[in-house]
Every structure is written in C-alpha cells, then in structure tokens.
C-alpha cells in the first residue's frame, strides 16, 4: 500500500512515530527533557542541534537502546499498530582499513543465518546487487568495508538499512565525513527512496545546506525541543541563531 504524508487523515492517523513527554537521564544529568515529536508517514525530518544536544541519545531511545521516561509509539502504514520495522544507519561507522569484511559479507552477516565465511550462492549475490542498486552502488559489492570512502560507506549502510524495507529509516549524521558531491548524491538518493518506498526518514545532521531542498521538517534540539517547523521557519528563527551562537552579539 502506498502511503504518503499528504493523503493521510489527521495527525492521529498519519503519525508513524509519536514521541510524548520523553526524558532521558544519566544519573543526575538530564540529557533530554519533555521531548514531543510526531513524525508523519513519508516525511524527511532533520534533527539538528549543537554538539551534546542529545540528538544521538534521542535516536538510541527510539531504537530501544537507551532507557527513557515517557512514551514512544510507532504506527505502520494503514494506521494499525503492530509490527514496525526501523532501519538504522549509524554514525561514524568504525570499519578499519584492513578488516577483511566485504560489502557482500556485511549483508550476509546481517541478513543470513548461513555463516558469511561459506560460499553464499548466486541468488544471494543477486539480491545484494539489487539492494545496492537502490543507492547506485552495485560496483561496491566486492570492496572491503574499510576501503570505502565516506560517501560510499554511507550508501552501502543505507542500502543495508533498507533490507528488509523498514517503515522508519533513521540516519545518524549521514553527511559527516562525506564530501560535497557525496552529500548531494546521498540526499538525492534519500529523496528518491522516500518517493519510491513507503517509509519516513529521520536524520541528524550538522550540515544545514541541504535542509531546505530535501527536508520536510526540521527539529531543533538542545536537551529539549527549541523549535520545529519547515526548514525556513527553523533556520530563520531566533532559537536557531541562539543555539549555534550566530546572533551577532554586540
């Protein structure tokens, strides 16, 4: 079923991710406080904020890797709560240069029960090539993970995160360590994936140059949500200038 944010009913029907009154504490320290965020089906939402604002913590809470207070609920397309799949592209993946793990090996480790060190067969190779074709990365299949450039690595991890196809795709700083050309390519592919697949995209970023062209909404976070709205609304707000010390001062 094709399901986009435009053809849903009200927020109640179309929210695929609903975060209510979410707080995360590390001992005495409050990292996130009273975060409310509704993400609608088919949207690309950018989560921005200064270093240490709690962006990665929020993502970990959504992934179920961090204890939190409050409520996080997921609703798949069609509005019926049930099995909900999240695809995740981690921040700064630590693949070492010499690690003998090829792109196909990584897919096998994530998707197959049969040990990746055994021959995988042509059918599996075809399915990996098909996945990589979503990010125009078929030529990368035999490359070692540690030999990929920043942009290639993000594309491979993006292709992997789409297997099996999730309802929510989360990318943690996908543009860091990627050159300008790679950023443009990655954002175009995210835009294309959002158009062709039935999923929503939540990404954290420190790069604001792409927000206006590719994102539907921007959420400014610094321990709590300071501002949310369209990219223009947020980027032109006082909260944004204050959060990044761009106010000009005296």
């Amino acid at each position, binding site marked *: 079923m094709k399901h986009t944010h435009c053809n849903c009913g009200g927020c109640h029907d179309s929210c695929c991710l609903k975060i209510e009154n979410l707080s995360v504490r590390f001992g005495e320290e409050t990292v996130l406080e009273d975060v409310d965020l509704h993400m609608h089906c088919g949207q690309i939402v950018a989560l921005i904020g200064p270093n240490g604002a709690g962006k990665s913590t929020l993502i970990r809470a959504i*992934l179920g*890797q961090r204890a939190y207070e409050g409520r996080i609920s997921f609703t798949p397309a069609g509005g019926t709560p049930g099995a909900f799949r*999240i695809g*995740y592209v*981690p921040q700064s*993946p*630590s*693949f070492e240069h*010499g*690690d*003998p*793990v*090829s792109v*196909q*090996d*990584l897919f*096998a*480790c*994530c998707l*197959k*029960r*049969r*040990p*990746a*060190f*055994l*021959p995988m067969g042509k059918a599996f190779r075809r399915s990996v090539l098909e996945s990589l074709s979503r990010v125009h990365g078929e030529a990368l299949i*035999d490359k*070692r*993970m540690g030999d990929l450039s920043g942009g290639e690595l993000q594309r491979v*991890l993006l292709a992997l995160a789409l297997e099996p196809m999730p309802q929510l795709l989360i990318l943690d700083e996908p543009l860091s360590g990627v050159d300008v050309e790679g950023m443009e390519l990655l954002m175009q592919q995210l835009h294309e994936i959002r158009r062709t697949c039935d999923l929503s995209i939540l990404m954290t970023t420190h790069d604001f140059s792409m927000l206006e062209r590719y994102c539907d909404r921007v959420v400014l976070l610094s321990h709590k949500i300071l501002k949310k709205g369209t990219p223009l609304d947020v980027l032109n707000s006082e909260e944004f200038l204050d959060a990044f010390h761009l106010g000009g001062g005296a």
Partner: protein
Amino acid sequence: MMRIWYGLCELLQMPWLEMDFMKHALLAVLLMGPLFGILSTMVVTGKMSFFSDALGHSGFTGIAVGVLCGSVFPVRWAVGFAVFFAVLFSFVKRRSGHATETVIGVFSSTAVALGIFIATMNGSSFTKFNRYLIGDILSVTPGELGLLALVLAVVAVLWCFLSNRLVLTAIHPQLASSRGIPVGTYELIFTVLIAVVVTLSMSWVGLMVINSLLVLPAAAARNIAKDLRQYHLVSVLGALGAGILGLVTSYYLGSSTGAVISLYLALWFAVTLCLRKRG
C-alpha cells in the same frame, strides 16, 4: 580411534612419527590448528588480543588455586576461574565506564599477582608451574585428545550458528544492536569460549606463548584476505601449517613446541605483511 590414527601415521613413514607421543602431538596440532585459527579471526576483528592474554593469566591463577586446594586436575580450576574472570570482566567493563584496555590491565595484573602470591605461599617452589608457562605438547594423552576434539566440535557448531552475529557485534556493536542482536550476550559467549580454550590448551602450548596462537593466525590472514571466506581459510591454514612445522622442528631441535609454532606464525605474519605491501 587411536589405532586408526596410529595406522595413518605409520603409512606416512616419517622418522619423527615413530614414537606414540609424537603421533599424539601431531593429532593435537591438527585439532588445535582449526580451533585457534577460527577463534583467532574473532579475537583480531574484535580487537581482543590483550583480553585473551589476560584470560591466560587468569588461567594461571586458577591453576595455582587448584594446586593449593590439592586438586589432581588443576586445569579444571583454571577453566572455572577463567570463565569467572571473563564474566566478571564483562560486568565491570559495562558498569565502570573505563576504557576496555584499562579494565583488562586491572584484571590481568590482579590475576597474575594473585596467582604468584598463591603459588609461592609458605615458601613453595614455583618450579611445578613451569609446565604451564612453557607448555609441553608431547605430554598430551589420548583422553585429552578426545576432549580437544570435543571442544573443536563445539566451537565449529557454535561458529556455524553464531559467527555472523559475532562478526557484526565485533565490527559495529551499535549496528548489531539496531538489528536486534543482544550484543552483551554474544560478547559474553565469545569471551567464555576463549576462556575455556585458552585454559584447556595452556598446559600443551604454554601460557607465555598461547596468545600468539590466538592473534597471529588471523593477523597474518588479515594482511592478505579480501573477504571473510579468505580470512577464515588463511587463518586456519596458517595455524595448521605453523603447528605441523613447529612440531617437526621442535622434535629435531629439542626445543619447546609452543614457542617454535609461535615463531613460525610470526614468520608467516612477516611474509603476509610483505605480500600486502607488494599488492
């Protein structure tokens, strides 16, 4: 079973295989090659070489405790102590917030100090522990070979079921966790596996060099392997080759087999490093 093995050895008509203890030692090397070759891949990928060294030290402490308690089989104490060490290490690592190598350093030095303290209490001689430090593969008995075969079978089966998740856990824990893999559980399973294998093999290979068998085969394979298949294959073949060459060389030179195997592995590492540079 042993008769079949003796028969096979006699077919080879090698002068160094005339004695029964050499036939046992060769079989031990053939069993340990794949065992250490496989485990080595994960030790190196998971950056656990310092940890496996520390596990060997904890095994020594277990031996010392076993001897103190008058045990006839102190290796059983060593296995128990090393498993306890591995579990406690995982717990402290997660709770303390210290860097992994700091926690390993704390555990390793404590284990060695405790082992030496117990071994030398009341002015006891340390000499009886030398066999565990240097190792003697020629002393391996048919019963111990059976145990080694059983451990290899268990590791092989576990590897068939768990290796994909273990690799993912080692190369990117957060990615593994996001795909529903209980990272902590898999790390614990692997550390316990290493603890059992290190302590069981300690008296044959020698505590001082056993870590080379857990690091060098995969370190060498990593120099030339392009994917996981080549990585496992080169690691296992390297461990097997060095094991057989080490056994034969030590027979003719009369030196410790464990040490010679380690030296061959170091040589193999150097060769693969040169091959990588040329590539």
